């Protein structure tokens, strides 16, 4: 019975799904620039930011959603509407003492660590809710980290379309070719979310990925 109900919901759900219901998730390790990218998109389209950014890791500790983002293709002929879901950075370890090194008091650091661990769990739970995902990576860092590989593997296992945004290309150390070599099966767009560089190319790549 459960099988038939599930099949019915999936089949008719997809049949009548409106484009505005598409969930586009921003995933990646902490401090890769997910919220900066979300802010750049939201400022560009809606004229307002989505969340606060910081140099200290795990600034985003809760799932944040901006609904009905509508982007246009370069030639202005196509439109794409989605709900943007900004997620906390996924990590395998969180130590409150690392926050204290950034100048936080112990109580505040412990609270931040507690919230950050919950954020990682939530981000993983939300993987199943996504229709498409942008993996935001810091192009100045090693793309072969196990967290990145685990995120990519889980999205592939769930058959969720992926676009990789190699962020921080404005920095000298950025190496977009290394990111491309690490994930040859996916489209990789080099961007600077902070300065809005290549954002239109990023939008155009989204048209190929979102379904």
């Amino acid at each position, binding site marked *: 019975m459960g099988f038939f109900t599930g099949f019915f919901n999936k089949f008719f759900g997809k049949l009548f799904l409106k484009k505005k219901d598409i969930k586009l998730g921003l995933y990646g390790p902490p401090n890769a620039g997910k919220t900066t990218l979300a802010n750049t998109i939201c400022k560009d389209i809606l004229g307002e930011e989505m969340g606060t950014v910081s140099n200290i890791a795990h600034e985003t500790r809760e799932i944040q959603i901006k609904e009905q983002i509508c982007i246009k293709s370069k030639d202005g002929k196509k439109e794409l509407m989605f709900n943007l879901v900004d997620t906390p950075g*996924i*990590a*395998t*370890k*969180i*130590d409150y*003492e690392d926050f204290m090194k950034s100048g936080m008091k112990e109580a505040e650091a412990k609270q931040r*660590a507690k919230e950050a*661990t*919950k954020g*990682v*769990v939530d981000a*993983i*739970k939300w*993987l199943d809710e996504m229709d498409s995902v942008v993996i935001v990576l810091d192009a100045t860092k090693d793309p*072969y980290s*196990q*967290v990145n*590989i*685990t995120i990519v*593997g*889980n999205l*592939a*296992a769930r058959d969720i379309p992926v676009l990789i945004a190699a962020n921080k290309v404005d920095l000298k150390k950025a190496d977009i070719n290394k990111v491309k070599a690490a994930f040859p099966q996916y489209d990789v767009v080099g961007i600077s979310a902070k300065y809005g560089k290549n954002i239109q190319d990023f939008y155009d790549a989204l048209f190929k990925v979102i379904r």
Partner: protein
Amino acid sequence: MSLTLQFVPYNDIVALGSARRVNKLMNIVKENKVVLLEGRLKKEEEADLISIAMEEIDNKFKGIELAVIDPKKEDSRNMFKNMKTGFVNLVLGDRQGFTVIGPATIIKEIKKDPNNIQLFTMDAGSKRKREAQQKLADAAAAK
């Protein structure tokens, strides 16, 4: 500072369900040992392992370091071999390569390249300092 590696043959986890697999490995890591698992977990189990590590974090346990060494990548162009491997994995589980899981309080970083795997451990000084701080915190909490 000593480092204990515990080898876990794939046969030890093959009959277990996902939740029990992950818990078994996590229990070893929480004993401050580094797990050397033959083969690898499913992708979803890797994500579950991270989730459980997050839920377990407290003043003593800081999470895990994880690395999967997967020799299949080197053969990714050989389609027939990949199909054969995929079928064997489906029937017997993914026994290729190995997985290293260590507690983040001991393993600072795991670096891998095609020929080497390097475990960078926390230096003994910082571990002793952390243990002393923990003892002080425990004593203060007991008062």
